[in-house]
């Protein structure tokens, strides 16, 4: 399917960022790599700049929130090497309550609005981002709507609490 093998990618990343890689696994058809927050930017830059890896296309990025985990906030990037038709997913987590990530908008301009969206939803800040404002919600909104503690509706309704959704 793709000429860029999973073994090659994992080998390359292990040799460069061995210590800071927390996990590498195949989830369905996606190689998913979890990396320490401090190495996130260098790793992304390496994936982009390396001639063989050549992950030149940023497909999507989004924030994640797992309030029950120690490192509750996370961010997910999906990259695509189109000539080799190879996709990869990078994740990074932090326990900081006001997380600051490095911006990727200098590598991929496509990240600009998506990082603003993530900021808007989760309150993450992106260091070095040219225009860190809310994008979809109004400026006067208090709180970060995609965080799990932000209520979607009246929080006292008994018919809409977590046990109704199998949790």
């Amino acid at each position, binding site marked *: 399917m793709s000429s860029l093998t999973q073994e090659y990618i994992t080998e390359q990343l292990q040799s460069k960022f061995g210590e800071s890689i927390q996990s590498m696994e195949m*989830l*369905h058809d*996606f190689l*998913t790599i979890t990396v320490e927050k401090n190495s996130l930017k260098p790793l992304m830059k390496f994936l982009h700049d390396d001639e063989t890896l050549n992950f*030149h*296309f*940023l*497909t*999507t990025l*989004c924030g*994640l*929130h797992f309030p029950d985990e120690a490192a509750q906030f996370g961010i*997910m990037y*999906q990259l695509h090497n*189109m000539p080799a*038709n190879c*996709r990869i*997913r990078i994740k990074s987590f932090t326990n900081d309550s006001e997380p600051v990530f490095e911006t990727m908008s200098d590598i*991929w*301009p*496509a990240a*600009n*609005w*998506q990082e603003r*969206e993530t900021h808007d*939803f989760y309150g993450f800040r992106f260091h070095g981002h040219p225009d860190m404002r*809310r*994008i*979809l*919600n*109004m400026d006067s909104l208090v709180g970060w*709507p*995609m965080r799990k503690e*932000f209520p*979607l*509706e009246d929080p006292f309704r008994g018919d*809409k609490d977590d046990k*109704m*959704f*199998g*949790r």
Partner: protein
Amino acid sequence: MNTNKEILQEKEYTILNLGPTHPATHGIFQNVMKMDGELIVEAQPTIGYIHRAFEKLAERRPYNQITPITDRLNYCSSPINNMGWHMTVEKLVGIEIPKRVQYLRVIIMELARIADHIICNSVIGVDSGAMTGFLYVFQWREFIYEIYEELCGARLTTNIGRIGGLERDFTPLAWEKIHKLLNEFPEGLKEFENLLVRNRIFMDRTINCGPITAERALEYGFTGPNLRAAGVDYDVRVMNPYSGYEDFTFEIPLGTNGDTYDRFMVREQEMWQSLSIIRQAVEKLEKMEDKTTFHADVPNFFLPEKEDVYNTMEGLIYHFKIVMGETEMPKGEVYHAVEGGNGELGFYLVSDGGRTPYRLHFRRPCFIYYQAYPEMVKGAFLSDAILTMSSMNVIAGELDA
């Protein structure tokens, strides 16, 4: 025309507010433009006017209730969004879809692509001053909506199909209408093309209007016809085939300049390809022995016939389990992408085993590529900015989610 003239800084500029509601923006977008006479010095887009928090809503809705949310993303091609979502869940659960259902879905998705491109291309015509073509082809969009109506009962926000297949089989009337479309639409489309493709005024207005290079388009995350107009042959249907697209023969039309004319032509050619795909699908289905299957055998996800619910124990149990959300969902995360009307529409789904997604992120193509708009219209005339916007096929519902 984008003249890319050098703009002197000492001038006095006018600030022009284009939108949020403006007849020429086809949706609720605001652009605050700094104008030097008729030239655009700077554009500052504001989006989010119809933000409805879909990603948050999806965290509180069982899987089958999320389909209507996806309708309202790119509402010009709702069926593609619906199918994309069903396939995402099917990928998570591991449901194998029978070939017949896959081909039926392909027919629906290609109909949606034609309906989407009809709107976008005819609106480019309108914005360059040619109303006639728009009125001609809109009758065909209307006809495609009649087909949707026959397939699912709805026209615009279709909620078509179910997890595991389709809600009902194609009716004889639906087949009749599909055949009518295959036979008569080419003539209408040809007529539309004759009005615009080699029209001197249209060409002068659109060639070199809002161009973007392939490199820049890739950096900005362009996908779909806009990227192909710039000359990159990326199409999800070929790169990561889904729903049986690997069984079809079709071409990926490409442009070279990435300008409005190329985007128009790419869409125009794609409609011919879509017609050919539908034709192939109809042929394949006619050759197939199976003439009745319209869903996979997954009683945990696909509602049983009402008759079974009333008369059999299993039917009642499955019905109850689906409606009350008692179905076991596997844990895990998946990403599934489909080639939407305007680009790669992706669904990133994280499941923790609950009845609702733990996290659902939509990769909305026009949200990502609309960022390039200020760069594309810089130094261009205002009237070209309008054309550029309509040729990018930015759909407010998808932009704002």
